[in-house]
């Protein structure tokens, strides 16, 4: 089912959490809401779920063309996975998963047998067979996360919403679960919207990334498109490391070619001020000789650095890629820095 968000405003007292936000989420897609804390992404997710209501009269939320703006959360048919899972800690895993079915009115509530079967099926789906009698405190973080997911899926939601799904997990579990979730999504094909502040997570996992900042959407698009062609300086800076050159251009560290200073095609010469080799990758900081005080980060291969026999203090040449439109992004207004107008 597609989700359509149309010019939503949300204020908390004097604070504006969402300022005229509109977004289309296509049916069956996996969409990431990406942004720093305070950007409004969680508020947007909660409005889609019906856990917050947009400012009266401001805009609409449509599920497959049907206006659900006034529909209470319990009737929207959304599955919501909370950041800290919000598992019912006094219930077993099975009871947690079955909860949404057992609270149905007697007329539409499935038979006990049916509920048990559904719970079993969901446990299998999230790979937690045999843990049905456990209680939440007896599970690892990754297991709790999957119980929360199974509980949300039990009511056969039309949309799945996840708030910082990997936020509370260790680095390794995070990675595993991320891949698993992608696979899982491909299998069940449920329209899914998740919130994250981690750009790597958004880029790796999502079909479509929505970058948010200061209560507004900065840019929407497929991960590769957003990474390669950021429309604003904020998006450029938020999605991975980037150098801002004196002429206002943005260049990612891996796009810079490392040469000897005297070679042809060198755009800029500078002194290596820092050199760090980790495995096959070498990271250099180069201080331009032109008198600019802005260090330039360059990523090269270890082989190249070895070949050139570089060490800290050496002079190197840098060659920038040809200018693309995207390298001069629109200034993100509030972040304007008066010192940035140097040539």
């Amino acid at each position: 089912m597609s989700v359509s968000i149309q010019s939503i405003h949300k204020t908390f007292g004097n604070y504006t959490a969402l300022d005229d936000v509109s977004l289309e989420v296509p049916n069956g897609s996996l969409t990431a809401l990406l942004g720093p804390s305070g950007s409004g992404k969680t508020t947007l997710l909660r409005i889609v779920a019906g856990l917050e209501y947009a400012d009266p009269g401001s805009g609409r939320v449509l599920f497959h063309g049907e206006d659900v703006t006034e529909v209470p959360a319990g009737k929207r048919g959304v599955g919501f996975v909370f950041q800290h899972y919000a598992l019912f800690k006094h219930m077993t895993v099975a009871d947690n998963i079955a909860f949404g079915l057992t609270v149905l009115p007697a007329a539409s509530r499935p038979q006990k047998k049916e509920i048990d079967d559904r719970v079993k099926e969901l446990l299998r789906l999230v790979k937690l067979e045999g843990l049905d009698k456990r209680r939440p405190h007896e599970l690892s973080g990754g297991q709790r996360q999957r119980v929360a997911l199974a509980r949300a899926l039990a009511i056969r939601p039309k949309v799945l919403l996840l708030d910082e799904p990997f936020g509370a997990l260790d680095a390794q579990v995070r990675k595993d679960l991320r891949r698993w979730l992608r696979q899982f999504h491909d299998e069940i094909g449920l329209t899914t919207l998740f919130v994250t502040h981690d750009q790597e997570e958004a880029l790796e996992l999502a079909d479509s990334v929505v970058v948010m900042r200061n209560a507004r959407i900065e840019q929407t698009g497929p991960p590769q498109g957003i990474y390669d062609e950021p429309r604003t300086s904020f998006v450029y800076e938020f999605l991975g490391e980037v150098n801002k050159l004196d002429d206002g251009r943005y260049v990612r560290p891996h796009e810079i070619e490392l040469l000897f200073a005297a070679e042809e095609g060198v755009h800029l010469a500078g002194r290596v001020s820092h050199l760090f080799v980790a495995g096959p990758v070498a990271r250099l900081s180069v201080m331009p000789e032109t008198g600019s005080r802005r260090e330039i980060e360059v990523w090269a291969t270890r082989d190249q650095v070895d070949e050139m026999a570089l060490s800290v203090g050496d002079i190197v040449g840098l060659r920038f890629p040809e200018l693309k439109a995207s390298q001069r992004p629109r200034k993100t207004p509030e972040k304007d820095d008066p010192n940035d107008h140097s040539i």
Partner: protein
Amino acid sequence: MSRPSATTESGPVRWLLIGLAFVALSLFLLLPLAAVFVEALRQGWDVFIKAFSDKAAASAIKLTLLSAAIAVPLNTIFGVAAAWLVTKFRFKGRSFLISLIDLPFAVSPVIAGLVFVLLFGARGWFGPFLQEHDIRIIFALPGIVLATVFVTFPFVARELIPLMESQGSDQEEAAVTLGAGGWQIFWRVTVPNIKWGLLYGILLCNARAMGEFGAVSVVSGHIRGKTNTLPLHVEVLYNEYHFSAAFACAALLALLALVTLGLKTAVEHFTGHTTKGRH
């Protein structure tokens, strides 16, 4: 608990402080407690037992139980509703409301009794009306219940508010997204999470309700065998120099206090965290 030496005191200082605390608390707590039971049994078991077979004593016990049985459930319902209101919702005047809930803590029990005398007493606002319709509130059970409710008003709410605040509303919101209705959320999600705190609040409320003296003393009229609660009965016996009988009844109330403390410790043991707070 072994602490690194840099952050604890030397042995002698430590034992001096422990010793001081022990002496202070023994004088303050254990001695009075022991005195209750020693005085109660000073004239032997017979006198002790006889103190309760007295008609007035039996009726005092009955009245105490009855007024607590009315006041405690009422304040429990209020406490749960108030805690739900101030922890699950944000609204204008919320912190003011919390202060109002605490208000009875700052009001003398005597004043708690006085206000109802001024409202319902023979010369009070509703006095003539009540007399006309032959309804007794002051110097009768309703007045005793009202005064008790006033004094024990904040106990359950006070216990639940910090607890529910710290638990947040995540689980309730999860239940909402899963389609649960209000009472389903309350009984199936909230109550299991707060049951120990609730129980403790009810225990404290009950202990205070059964032991309340000042407020009840003002509204009861001290009609022997009729409107005397157990604490008032203790006073009457004491003032009539029936010391052993007075202390025998006091011992029963002290026992109630000890049971309350014991249950409280058990509750803390069950929940694994303390329910310490303001009372």
